[in-house]
């Protein structure tokens, strides 16, 4: 993939001007860079961030590998995050995960060969009132059953954009 580095420079400088406080904007910048590349941070971009902020590259990676939401590998068009916390667990979350693995034929942390889906787990999404819950990119789906999960996947495969 070709990485447009001037765009990364722009993002970093934009973030610098928006901050009220002089200092380290690294987490926010990484969010912006990741969004720009469609949910991952290529090594070339990480290098630019390090240069622009005048910090060692190791520092960028130290931070970016700490947080689960940042990825150094390309992820699918749809990142499916399955809530694996107790409220979802007691209301059938395990089955939801099994169904997704079966349906997508991938394990947690993997991406389908066609680049459509990445399966991840997430900490509590705070939608326990309608558990079990998953999040597909920025959209939530609640009160799930294996059947509903299959329908969602089918819809996304057919190109129906989320909800």
């Amino acid at each position: 993939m070709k990485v447009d580095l001037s765009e990364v420079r722009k993002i970093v400088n934009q973030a610098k001007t928006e901050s009220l406080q002089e200092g380290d904007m690294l987490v926010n910048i990484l969010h912006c860079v990741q969004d720009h590349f469609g949910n991952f941070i290529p090594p070339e971009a990480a290098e630019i961030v390090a240069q622009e902020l005048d910090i060692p590259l190791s520092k960028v990676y130290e931070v970016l590998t700490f947080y689960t939401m940042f990825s150094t590998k390309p992820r699918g068009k749809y990142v499916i995050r399955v809530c694996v916390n107790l409220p979802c667990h007691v209301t059938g979350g395990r089955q939801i995960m099994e169904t997704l693995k079966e349906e997508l034929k991938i394990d947690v942390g993997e991406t389908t060969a066609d680049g459509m889906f990445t399966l991840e787990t997430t900490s509590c999404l705070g939608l326990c009132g309608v558990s079990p819950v998953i999040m597909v990119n920025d959209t939530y789906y609640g009160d799930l059953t294996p059947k509903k999960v299959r329908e969602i996947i089918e819809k996304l495969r057919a190109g129906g954009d989320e909800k």
Partner: protein
Amino acid sequence: MALTANTILICAGGACISSGEESVKQALEREISKYALQDAVRIVETGCMGACSLGPLMVIYPEGVFYQKLTPKAAQEIVEEHLLKGRVVEKYLYKGPTGEVVPQVAEKLPFFSRQVRIVTRNVGFIDPKNIEEYIARDGYFALAKVLREMTPEEVIEEVKKSGLRGRGGAGFPTGLKWELTRKGTSQKKFVVCNADEGDPGAFMDRSVLEGDPHTVLEAMIIAGYAIGANQGYIYVRAEYPLAIERLNTAISQAREYGFLGSNIMGTEFSFDIEIRIGAGAFVCGEETALIASIEGKRGQPRVKPPYPAERGVWDCSTLINNVETFANIPPIILKGADWFKSIGTENSPGTKVFALAGKIVNTGLVEVPMGITLKELLYEIGGGSSTGKPIKAVQTGGPSGGCIPAQYFDTPVDYDSLQKLGAIMGSGGMIVMDEDDCMVDVAKFFLEFTVDESCGKCTPCREGTRQMLRILEKITSGEGTEEDLYELEALGETIKDTALCGLGQTAPNPVLSTLEYYRDEYEMHVKEKRCPALKCKDLTRYVIDESKCVGCTACARVCPVNAISGEVRKAHVIDNEKCVRCGSCIEVCRFNAINKVSP
């Protein structure tokens, strides 16, 4: 604004959105314009109304009729019947446990009538995207009072007098924290709102941020005035995109109206707020880790003291309060500390928002006075078990808390009583479990969480919790011994005493509390190799009841590992060597012929 005949409040909380609020709203709009009612009816998307299990839901004023479990078709009927003809559509009203239609009016439903709403006073009643609706409900009045009539010391005194304690979990007196931060010696000071709500099963902060973001801003500005800070940060988890969006809107509106920025309300005082977004790390809810994350570093905690009041963001004195704590501040300023103290108990004044989840009829958010008993909370407001089986235990405080068994449900809910039971108030998540839930499995579940989320900085948490998990895995796979139970206790106590931060120190709680109250269940796992709740896979088997099986082959076809065999129209058998206990066969069997047994 023209006078409207009807106002529809439609809940646009995360839970209702996930169950189809958007399509209901579109249907409403379509029908309303079809009948040219645009000028007579106003639709307001509010924050979470709390009754998540009934969503999508809405309330139509002036009568206050409460409609639930809506669909686009329901919306159409309601426009045609209710709005055009003035007839309440009964089938979408809330029905009680026996199917009776109970009061139409939202305020009179048992779920709502028992609540005392301070923190969530505006959530579900106003349009969170419109600052004027907040102002119309006395919003920013407390700020005006503080800036015009009170000195910073008086503000702190009032908060101290109210007895408000931190709602994030530990229950530290809020006024004292403010005072300590004011006394901090650094030149610059910061106010931080901890909106990194990560405890599984707790979602009250999210609801306040989404449903009433201005109350948090107002309280932070007041705090800034009281401690002498000019800048605030709200640290929100990235898992809450809607909350982030609404906060951004609120901040720019507040700037526009002169509540944020330079010379607020024409005074000398200036204050501004910036949002920082987390990136998926549970430990960042711990205050020192949160500070590190705000500074753009790995979110790892450090040793306290020094506390943030002395050395916080950029080594400056920093006040950190949680969302729910802040939301209490404007009412305390407006109505006074004495009013606040008249609610709740002596040592825990005020209210607490609880998130009811798991196997309970009315899942969602409720705000009740401190001191209410668990029984009242779970049965009278929560509606009791949703599975028909009795409630066995309730888990409070997430991975830092413990399980409270049903025989203690007369306990009043406040900081001290829960602590005595080995649980904690935590952020207020209540996860209800019935006899189908295995307590060893629950403990293991939380340990998996902690092991996963441990930041790795200190050994007791990084290695200790891993060892505890290993023992629990041994037990649930049928290889545990009695010694393991003692080992678990000893390890748990050691971690409690030696871990660096609050997350580590409380990580053994789920294990220790279940060991205390459900030791018999642990013993069955180790002595009899049996899981009474039939949850632990390695200790259960699936068997087909020959007398019920008609040989339809549905189970054999669905089995992913071909563990089921048998001829058509003859009873089938399951090979338990091959069986992975996925449960697919039980799901498809129409004759209830497949049972789970242990051992």
